[in-house]
């Protein structure tokens, strides 16, 4: 059980972003998704969270195909993107109230306040999100997902906007999710940071997986692959 991709391909017009990707993710996996720009990382993440659907192949979550109309499967999926996905003209508290209610998990005011305090946004809870910095919006998004508790959490380049304590906060949240049996997939160019956390690394290039191994120490094969395929990020 977990997440299974079978011969998944995705084309945008005549351009193939992913080709014949086979992948199995198990509960508790913390996966670092690496690759140069245009390798297909974001496409893979968007397929995994059902924002896109494959051109061919199939994706299963806990044995169920991730097709259109599978609303209950979407409640298991979380996606943190760099733009935060927060309504600017709603306050931090209203954003959390709206998204949790829409996901069928109506929260009490005290629970929302606790989540905001946890990410350090307590004093800004009644301020419009437009007044928050990018980093603070990212913290707000972390608070949102901490309330929604996804079993399968995807992140697209989350490190860019967060300061040091923000990164610590995010990583502690991700570790807790993994310890609870969730699957975390993080696409990033911050290789050194994510290597300290992940239990497995995937390298994508040209729409295909060219490296997929569980973490071990020393990890010579990864460093070789990394040097061969991602010299610019070494």
């Amino acid at each position, binding site marked *: 059980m977990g997440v299974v991709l079978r011969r998944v391909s995705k084309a945008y017009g005549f351009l193939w972003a992913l080709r014949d990707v086979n992948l199995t993710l198990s509960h508790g996996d913390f996966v670092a998704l690496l690759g140069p720009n245009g390798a297909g990382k974001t496409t893979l993440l968007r397929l995994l*969270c059902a924002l896109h659907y494959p051109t061919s192949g199939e994706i299963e979550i806990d044995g169920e195909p991730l097709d259109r109309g599978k609303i209950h499967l*979407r409640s298991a999926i979380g996606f943190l993107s760099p733009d935060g*996905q*927060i*309504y600017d003209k709603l306050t931090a508290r209203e954003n959390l109230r709206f998204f949790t209610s*829409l996901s069928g998990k109506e929260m009490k005011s005290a629970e929302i306040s606790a989540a905001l305090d946890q990410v350090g946004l307590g004093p800004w809870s009644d301020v419009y999100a437009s007044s928050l910095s990018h980093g603070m919006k990212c913290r707000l998004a972390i608070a949102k997902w901490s309330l929604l508790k996804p079993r399968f959490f995807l992140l697209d380049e989350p490190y860019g906007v967060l300061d040091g304590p923000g990164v610590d906060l995010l990583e502690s949240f991700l570790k807790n999710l993994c310890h609870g049996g969730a699957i975390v997939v993080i696409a990033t160019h911050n290789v050194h940071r994510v290597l300290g956390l992940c239990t497995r690394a995937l390298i994508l290039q040209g729409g295909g997986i060219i490296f997929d191994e569980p973490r071990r120490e020393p990890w010579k094969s990864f460093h070789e692959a990394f040097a061969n395929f991602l010299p610019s990020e070494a």
Partner: protein
Amino acid sequence: MGTLKQTYWLLWKDVLLEIRRRETLLSMFFFGTVLLFLFHFSFEIPREQTARMAPGLLWLAFIFTGTLALTQLFQGEKESRCLDALLLCPMDRGALYLAKVFFNLIMMVVVEVVIFPLFGVLFNLDFWRLLPSLFFVVLLGTIGFCVLGTLFSALTLRARAKELLLPLILFPLMIPAILGTVRAMQILLGAGPGQEFYPWLRLLIGFDVIFMTAGFLIFEWVIEE
């Protein structure tokens, strides 16, 4: 969670955002009023022709004003890049369609409540006695405009020239609803002798039901990137 409850939350968000931004509704008011004055000064309608011409002019004002609202319908999502966040939520995407239809309907009805009497005053139209039945017909036409307009607003969401594309696709498809509303209003105003009122009413109700059902069912495909 029920689709209606999700529709309620989405509508709550849209209304709150509009109250705080105050952009779309104000623009609609100004545009609608300006159109009425332009019509008033451009057409010198003989008194005996007013009942025949008025519904068409009034509907032109409504659909032009409504198109303005349709182009702004997903503005909140665009500005905050929140469409993905909505699509990630475990909800029937039809709820998003219903919420946008109701939101658009609220906006148009609010504007119509002001424009309708103003039109009567400007064109010396003695329709006060018929106001409830006229407004009922206008409401049916407005629902038709909103159900179809919301669908095409979502369809052209990522198009480059959305403001140009939307009316080009929408207006031809709106012809049955426009025709039904204008004819039904003319009959009510006594300008359509020998014509029956109820077939036009049935056309409007059928239009609304068919496109609202179709919109609800296909919105999942329409809203996808």
